């Protein structure tokens, strides 16, 4: 310290004017104030205040301030330097990080079938846009563009290019070749934007299930719409459906053939796994091309398998019989009068092909007798029927993941007359999906599985609900098999696969009346009946009879053969082992005769079966007899 220059007492200098006592540059000690402890040798007032002293003092102040600033700044720099070098970790942040290889480059997940085949994927394309402000000569630019993209309209293009906006799309989703061509033109103000285009390799085959997207890749139908959020939020993992592309193809092929053969206006088909509730194939005809959403109309977009609700006709006798068995009062051998028509108010219910005698429950099912069905439901009661149909899921949508799920048309109030008509499949409209899911629960041991379009993991627990008893289910399997061996569904039989099923034909309601010549013919088949695994459902909308079918267009003539052909082709694909139908093990679990006996060993010839055991498939069909 050089404070002695002034002779002031060391350490007692009062900081005048903002001096920093500890700072290295503090050399100035102000004139000491009078202190009681020390007697200064001279009084401060005695010192001469020369101009030199003043100047010195000033420069000391300045030096002090400068030194303080410099110190502060350098300290700050030092601290920052230490922080940046010693404590910052990795230095500056990386500009580039390595990509994760399993990442997808697209913003929307793929959709695949249960075997991993692509059903929908996103491909990166380039779209052409323009900034009209930067386009100097719109006419010339438009001319050039039209020369390489002939599908563009010249006038429209000139209008777009000379507008006032700063951004205008010229063409979306160019092919690489087109992009190169446009690029080579070198027009200023025109640029490309990376976009994605949804591509459906399977095309129309899965159109109703997968659906399609709009130009901005938002789902507009099918699973694309139902899982829009999931597809965009997790683009890395594909969405796996329960569909099997091969089954889908077989189903569509046979339905198309049937539609052509009978000049029908449409058809629907479903293949359903009764053990897991998975939909393995679902087709609705006519279908559409999801690549080209421009030519779509409401008829092709309409999903008959899930959105359409129809009066199912005789296939509903499945549920009527299951209800009767499950109520515990009726056995297959019980007899019901099918001779006398039933009058309810102004309606008369009749069998047009009446056998004019009493029928067993098995025969009611075999010949699809309306009267017998009504007599059965009369014994069970309206409330029980309503509860049963609710349990079968016929009062609400199926819960399938598609946005196109139809609400059933349920009678309200549910009167006695409604219960009569519902017993043979009129007065309650449900979608084919409803029917299939419920029928699967009737034959698989009584377990109702909610139908799903997503593949279940093999170890995942399947939500189930016991809706009918095992005994009822066992009887119903025999009834199914009986219809195919000796009833209306003979043409659905496939040797080796123990097919069972039930035909159905319903007159279509147009306005307030039922039309006699427009009907829905259907067949609900299942195989193998000794241990059911798959349900095959075929519905044909307004088939016209042909000469080959002798003027019939009922379920047994139209839908059952198609179902048979489908089962024949999908059986091997589904790994269903073929068996000998006449072997004792199979007969043990599938035999039923017209008398309602399940004991095949005393297989007497059917006691009461009439010689031509050929009823019409449908109660409402107004003709006498029909083979098969």
């Amino acid at each position: 310290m050089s404070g002695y220059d002034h002779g002031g007492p060391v350490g007692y200098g009062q900081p005048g004017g903002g001096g920093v006592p500890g700072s290295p540059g503090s050399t100035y000690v102000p004139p000491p104030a009078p202190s009681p402890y020390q007697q200064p040798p001279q009084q401060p007032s005695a010192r001469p205040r020369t101009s030199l002293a003043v100047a010195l003092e000033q420069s000391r102040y300045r030096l002090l301030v400068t030194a303080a600033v410099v110190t502060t700044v350098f300290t700050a720099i030092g601290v920052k330097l230490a922080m940046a070098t010693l404590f910052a970790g990795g230095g500056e942040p990386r500009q580039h990080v390595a990509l994760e290889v399993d990442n997808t480059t697209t913003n929307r997940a793929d959709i695949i079938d249960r075997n991993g085949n692509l059903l929908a994927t996103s491909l990166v394309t380039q779209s052409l846009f323009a900034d009209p402000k930067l386009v100097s000569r719109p006419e010339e630019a438009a001319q050039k563009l039209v020369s390489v993209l002939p599908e563009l309209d010249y006038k429209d293009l000139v209008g777009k290019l000379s507008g006032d906006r700063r951004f205008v799309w010229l063409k979306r989703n160019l092919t690489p070749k087109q992009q190169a061509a446009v690029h080579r033109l070198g027009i200023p103000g025109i640029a490309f934007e990376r976009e994605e285009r949804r591509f459906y390799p399977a095309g129309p085959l899965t159109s109703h299930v997968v659906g399609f997207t709009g130009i901005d890749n938002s789902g507009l139908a099918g699973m694309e719409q139902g899982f829009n959020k999931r597809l965009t939020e997790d683009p890395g993992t594909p969405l796996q459906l329960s569909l099997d592309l091969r089954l889908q193809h077989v189903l569509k092929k046979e339905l198309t053939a049937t539609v052509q053969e009978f000049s029908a206006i449409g058809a629907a088909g479903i293949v359903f796994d009764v053990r897991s509730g998975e939909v393995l194939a679902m087709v609705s005809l006519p279908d559409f091309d999801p690549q080209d959403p421009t030519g779509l109309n409401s008829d092709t977009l309409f999903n008959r398998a899930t959105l359409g609700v129809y009066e199912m006709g005789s296939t509903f006798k499945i549920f009527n019989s299951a209800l009767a068995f499950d109520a515990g009062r009726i056995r297959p051998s019980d007899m019901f009068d099918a001779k006398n028509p039933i009058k309810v108010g102004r309606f008369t219910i009749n069998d047009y092909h009446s056998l004019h005698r009493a029928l067993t429950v098995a025969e009611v099912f075999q010949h699809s007798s309306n009267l017998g069905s009504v007599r059965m439901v009369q014994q069970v009661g309206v409330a029980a029927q309503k509860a049963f149909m609710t349990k079968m899921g016929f009062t609400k949508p199926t819960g399938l993941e598609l946005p196109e799920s139809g609400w059933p048309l349920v009678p309200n109030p549910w009167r006695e007359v409604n219960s009569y008509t519902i017993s043979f499949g009129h007065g309650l409209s449900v979608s084919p999906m409803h029917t299939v899911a419920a029928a699967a629960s009737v034959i698989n041991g009584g377990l109702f599985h909610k139908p799903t379009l997503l593949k279940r993991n093999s170890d995942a627990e399947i939500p189930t609900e016991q809706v009918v008893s095992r005994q009822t289910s066992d009887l119903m399997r025999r009834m199914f098999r009986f219809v195919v061996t000796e009833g209306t569904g003979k043409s659905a039989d496939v040797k080796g696969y123990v097919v069972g099923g039930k035909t159905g034909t319903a007159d279509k309601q147009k306005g307030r009346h039922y039309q006699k010549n427009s009907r829905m013919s259907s067949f609900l088949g299942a195989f193998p009946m000794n241990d059911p695994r798959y349900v095959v459902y075929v519905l044909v909308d307004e088939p016209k009879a042909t000469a080959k079918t002798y003027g019939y267009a009922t379920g047994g003539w139209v839908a059952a053969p198609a179902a048979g052909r489908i089962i024949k082709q999908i059986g091997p694909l589904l790994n269903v082992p073929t068996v000998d139908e006449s072997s004792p093990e199979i007969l043990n679990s599938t035999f039923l005769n017209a008398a309602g006996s399940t004991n095949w060993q005393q297989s007497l010839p059917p006691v009461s079966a009439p010689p031509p055991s050929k009823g019409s498939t449908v109660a409402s069909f107004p003709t006498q007899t029909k083979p098969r």
Partner: protein
Amino acid sequence: MKGKTWLFWGGLIAAAGGVLFQTSYDVQDLEEKLAGLNRKIIHEQESIQVLKAEWSYLNDPSKLEQMAQSYLALQPTEPRQYVAMDLIPMRPADAVPPPAPALPGQPGAAPLPPMVRAPGTGTSQVASARVPTVPNNTAAGIVPVSVPATAKPLPMDKALERAAVVVPASLPSGGGLADPAPRIKPSALVPGAARAPVERPAEKAATDRAAGKLAPNAPTAPNRATEVATRPVPPAAAPVPAPKAAAAQQPYQPKPTDSLGLLVARLGVNR
């Protein structure tokens, strides 16, 4: 002393600075490379996606069925074509073993190395190349097509050699094994213009002679040299004299196995 200290520290600082700059540029370089790789990865992923889509598109069942119908004689499988495994009876133990196939003309002879032309037989050895040449006594209970139990697994290259490669009967020596693959010899390529017209009549003659033996739907490509080899040569006919005659005229005549050389010559690449 003081100057040296300065020099030392100065040098150290300069060196550190140099290394630092060098590292910095290296890192910059690497970053650029990484960015390039990332771009490439994205591009590859997009290409993969396109290929996947194309694969699925081409594997559309409707298309496959159409093509199978037009190009294959196969029908959809039917349930009756399936048999459960346990329905197949076991083979009775005392069944007589089927006689092992003996080579025509030399019963009981030592097994020939495959693809070597049997001496004295003018026919090519297509059939015998694949048949396991096992003596009769060891083949008990083994069906002829199965691999004999004593056979050791062959290494890959040996197995490839065993495959049925057709050796034309007109091969001048038994060297089919030595040079199974056609190779272009420089000498075969040079005089192509001169040789090609000479070769054609010989080829045609061979084609005409074998035409009667060909299946009607067999693909005929008369200009392919390998066609000569795969064609069944009638055993009665003399082993193709034409190449020999041509060889007498032309010292540069390539072997009939030198198919690529022939092809080049025939296409007139050198012209």
